[in-house]
């Protein structure tokens, strides 16, 4: 028996390329060992993970390269251009759309040696980190000094700052602290041709289109983020936890809309449908949790505003315990790996719409995925709220003799429902390779063509993260 690859066979790169990159990063940081090729063959794309238990991997890269700094990355990319070798950047490997899955004739660029805390500027409330630092460690460095970014995604313990930037990630406390694009003030990026761009950290500028926005969501296809300056907040002095139940998702959404319209900004707002409420809290009612945190006086006031609007609009208070339950369970993904061993395919899909469409999108998406033959469970919650709308996060599980057909059909049903209801196909997981077929309907043919032109202008040899974000040029 041996590893079966379904994306491509284990490939080769020119021996001259290997020789030259060894000179750049040191021989000990270039590996073609079987153990390394297996380990960098897959990120956390859930269907790939499902298959990995059977020894089926998307591909085995030809080589893994682990540079130690920006200069070495520049050298590797210049070398890759010279030899026309595809490079797949690998941050924490926690992406769920296959954005870090390499092709067979490609090299993986492991960015996890760049994992240092660089500095904290307490006057300006900004901190600088190397991009390969894991989120939990970034926060530990800051918390130790009395600060936090407020960016706590579910992948907090395994994803990197560079990964957050490259996928336009968000954390669970985003309604107050913002999303990664709100937090990043400056960054250093190695371009596909090996040149380096240093975008200095300032709160805002008017100097033409924002260059940093090219790389916020660039998915490693437009450049490699090597360090970033992020905004930080003093650790909150007061935390107010509240929860309410409502008769329906639509009524709960309406309450959240009114709260945000009133300029309250709880850090956490989550609306769980009946299925998720039962799973988390043991009740079959739509549950909404709020966490307000910050200056004590403000938080008392914010808590009172949230409570008043929720009660005035049919919310039944349920106290702090559902919030504590969620805080305790929010990183627990243990059920998925157990279910997968029973042949059950599981995944999550996050989309976003305006408030006017939110309830319809929820109903349509849940019923569409439920209708897919093989579905066992579909549930949803709303999180990451804005004054104008919210992110809908769907979880589904199902089993079928043809697991790939089930997986594909579920995704298609969810994406079609999103597009039917004026939603955007991704809120914060990104595109990777798995979702890119829907990009034309998301951006329009012209939008995709514009993105392709930007890609070609930056990466004329097409070396960086081939086959991700947009379809390759024909």
């Amino acid at each position: 028996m041996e590893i079966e690859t379904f994306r491509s066979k284990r490939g080769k790169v020119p021996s001259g390329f290997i020789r030259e990159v060894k000179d750049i990063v040191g021989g000990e940081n270039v590996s073609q060992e079987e153990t390394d090729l297996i380990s960098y063959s897959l990120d956390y794309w859930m269907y790939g993970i499902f298959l990995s238990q059977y020894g089926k991997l998307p591909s085995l890269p030809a080589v893994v390269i682990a540079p130690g700094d920006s200069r070495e990355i520049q050298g590797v990319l210049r070398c890759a251009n010279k030899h026309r070798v595809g490079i797949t950047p690998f941050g924490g490997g926690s992406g769920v759309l296959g954005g870090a899955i390499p092709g067979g004739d490609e090299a993986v660029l492991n960015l996890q040696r760049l994992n240092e805390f660089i500095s904290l500027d307490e006057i300006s409330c900004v901190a600088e980190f190397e991009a390969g630092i894991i989120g939990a460690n970034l926060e530990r460095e800051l918390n130790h000094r009395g600060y936090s970014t407020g960016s706590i995604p579910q992948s907090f313990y395994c994803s990197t700052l560079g990964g957050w930037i490259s996928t336009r990630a968000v954390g669970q406390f985003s309604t107050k602290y913002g999303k990664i694009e709100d937090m990043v003030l400056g960054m250093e990026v190695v371009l596909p041709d090996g040149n380096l761009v240093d975008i200095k950290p300032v709160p805002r500028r008017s100097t033409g289109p924002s260059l940093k926005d090219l790389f916020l969501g660039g998915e490693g296809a437009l450049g490699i983020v090597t360090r970033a300056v992020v905004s930080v907040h003093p650790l909150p002095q007061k935390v107010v936890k509240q929860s309410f139940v409502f008769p329906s998702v639509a009524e709960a959404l309406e309450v959240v809309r009114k709260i945000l319209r009133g300029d309250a900004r709880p850090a956490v707002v989550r609306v769980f449908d009946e299925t998720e409420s039962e799973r988390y809290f043991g009740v079959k009612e739509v549950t909404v949790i709020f966490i307000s945190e910050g200056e004590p006086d403000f938080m008392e006031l914010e808590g009172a505003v949230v409570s008043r609007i929720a009660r005035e609009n049919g919310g039944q208070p349920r106290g702090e315990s559902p919030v504590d339950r969620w805080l305790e369970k929010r990183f627990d993904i243990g059920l998925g790996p157990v279910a997968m061993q029973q042949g059950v395919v599981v995944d999550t899909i996050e989309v976003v719409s305006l408030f006017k469409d939110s309830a319809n999108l929820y109903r349509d998406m849940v019923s569409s995925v439920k209708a897919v033959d093989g579905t066992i469970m579909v549930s949803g919650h709303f999180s990451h709220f804005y004054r104008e709308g919210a992110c809908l996060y769907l979880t589904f599980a199902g089993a079928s003799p043809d697991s790939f057909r089930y997986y594909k059909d579920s995704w298609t049903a969810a994406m079609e429902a999103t597009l039917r209801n004026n939603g955007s196909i991704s809120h914060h997981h990104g595109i990777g390779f798995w979702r890119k077929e829907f990009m034309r309907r998301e951006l329009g043919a012209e939008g995709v063509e514009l993105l392709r032109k930007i890609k070609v202008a930056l990466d004329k040899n097409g070396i960086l993260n081939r086959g991700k974000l947009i379809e390759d040029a024909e």
Partner: protein
Amino acid sequence: MKMLNKGEVEQITSCALCANMCKHGCPVYLATGSETLTPQKIARLILYREKGFIRDEAGFFKVMFQDAMCGACRVNCIYNNFDLRDFIHKERSEAFKKALLPQETGRRVENFARFGNPDGERQLIQKGNGETGYLVSCSTYRDAAILGAVEKVLAARGECQEFGGGDICCGAPLYYAGDTEGFKKVAEKMKGEIEQRGLKKVVTSCPACIKMMTEIYPRLGVRLDVELIHISGFIAALLKQGKIKVNRMKATATFHDPCLLVNDMGITAAPREVIEALGLEIKEAVYGGKNAHCCGGLPGGKIGDSKLSGRVNAMRAGELKETGAEVYLSACPTCKAALAAVGMKDIAELVAERISDG
């Protein structure tokens, strides 16, 4: 191949399919940035070997000896009662059977066969009387300063036996080398050493000795009828009871938590009580207490790859230096040696230096 039972296969598969939620605390991963050395990827490799997918056996065993066996992944695991180290140990046992040990690990195993300890010929230590014994671990035997300090503390405490050196060892070097059979014999020998001395309590400075004797021996059917106490708790109790008194000093100190002490025994308070009793102001490291990183050990120890253990040593020393403390303390002779770059001392040494007569 085919070493695991059905339940074990389910466990290792769950780990292999997890999102690597514990990798942030893995010292080997942090020192190298290597995805291969993260717990989830090690689990995937073990699963693939179990299923017969691995072709490069030597490369596979090399990875098994690159893990720190420090327990950070167990502490940070989302599953209850899962310890990846047990699976890695099984693979190390296979490597031992196939004589595929890293060089330095193999050398220590050979020493064990000749001298009954990993270091070579050495004197047997037997001093004092009483039902309480101080076990001189192999790591303590190598450090005269710690041993002298402990003797001074024990003298202040009163009646106590001191034993070790020669061929007295808990067997941890064999356990981490995968020599399960040899380890079991050593465990039985240690049981005899304790029983023939009539000991009711055994104190030691080495957390690995305590882990072996309390957790691993019973798995092999060797049960010790003795209370095992780490030196930090022993000294903290003596200070609390007023049996020893110390002259307080004014300085800042950072304590490096030994991995097995914190991850397996959950001990973080006792050493800090000792440090505070000395009057020192504790400056915690960013990665301190339950988030402390392993020191990396010494060549051929828990990490079999000597070069790699050096990289972890350097990383940990760097993390500690950042506190800018005047004194660096630990409570494990191996940690002290591995972190010599920061001028590490054992808490027993500082206590011995500061013992007052009244």
